[in-house]
């Protein structure tokens, strides 16, 4: 069986207020399941890798086949935990190492 190809997304959280990682991931899951349903969300294989609210920065993981789906869902987020917010993708990479390297550049 072929291994799952993963994609790591570095995200910038644009919001005035603070929220914890659970609220953040709830917002991501909710956006994906609203647009693509529970079946689509189950295919996305979403996982939170890194979260730093002070720096307004997060890293999430998804599968390469659902990358566009996750991009769309992230763009559709307007609230996190009922507080106005937006999420912007900084960069996408196939490995965590390359992702951090890209961000540093």
């Amino acid at each position, binding site marked *: 069986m072929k291994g799952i190809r993963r994609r790591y997304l570095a995200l910038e959280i644009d919001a005035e207020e603070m929220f914890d990682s659970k609220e953040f991931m709830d917002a991501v899951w909710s956006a994906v399941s*609203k*647009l693509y349903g529970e079946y689509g969300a189950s295919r996305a294989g979403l996982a939170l890798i890194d979260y730093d609210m002070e720096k307004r920065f997060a890293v999430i993981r998804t599968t390469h086949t659902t990358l566009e789906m996750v991009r769309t869902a992230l763009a559709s987020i*307007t609230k996190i935990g009922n507080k106005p917010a937006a999420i912007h993708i900084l960069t996408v990479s196939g490995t965590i190492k390359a992702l951090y390297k890209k961000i540093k550049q």
Partner: protein
Amino acid sequence: MKRIYADLHLCANLKDSERVSRIISKASRLGYRLIAITFPSNSTEEEIQKLRSICKEANIDLASRVDLKPKTPKELIYNLRKLRRRFEIIAVMCESKNVARQAAKDRRVDLLNFPSLDFRRRFFDLAEAELASNSLASLEINMKLLLTLEGPARIRLLSSLRRETAIAQEFHVPIVISSGVSDELLLRKPRELAALAFLFDLDETCAVEAVSKNPVAIVKRNREKLSPRFVAPGMRIIRRGKDY
């Protein structure tokens, strides 16, 4: 050559200059190099120039835009005659079928916008697309509604947009994706707007062109026409001098 991204529909309250500056700098930070802000039809040249200088500081180009909401085709023609030489972009909010048809066939109209959520009041059908393909009008899609609506209303909107974009592509009517927002938190990066277009089955190339090539072409064409050197399409004054 590096792609230029444009958002041709930013709705800012021009009286609140601090907020306008914030929106402009945010747009610049998100990667836009050309924006259009909607001005009231009675705006003076000084007001436009003032905003242009703010944009210049933020390293972004500003195009002046006016939104027309005529009730009759006659009113549309009157407004076009009055405003075409004053603004770089003219968008028509098509709220009736007669107005939509007149706007689609008039070469002075740049953008056709269908603001209604009711699919019976969205008039971008085959006839409208055929008229638009023979003139210079593009179909404008505002992403604000996709971000703010939820549930059945968003589902119905996506269904309408899917039908309209398929018709536009069939008749080679350019599609322009704009944000249409007045709140900076609803601003999205150009690639994110293109990603949202996947929801109504616009492929990646078309979606990226709808936030870059198509809007930039409209502004470029109109600036050329509004230039004092312009004579006719393909003809412009190179140098003034005596006859020999």
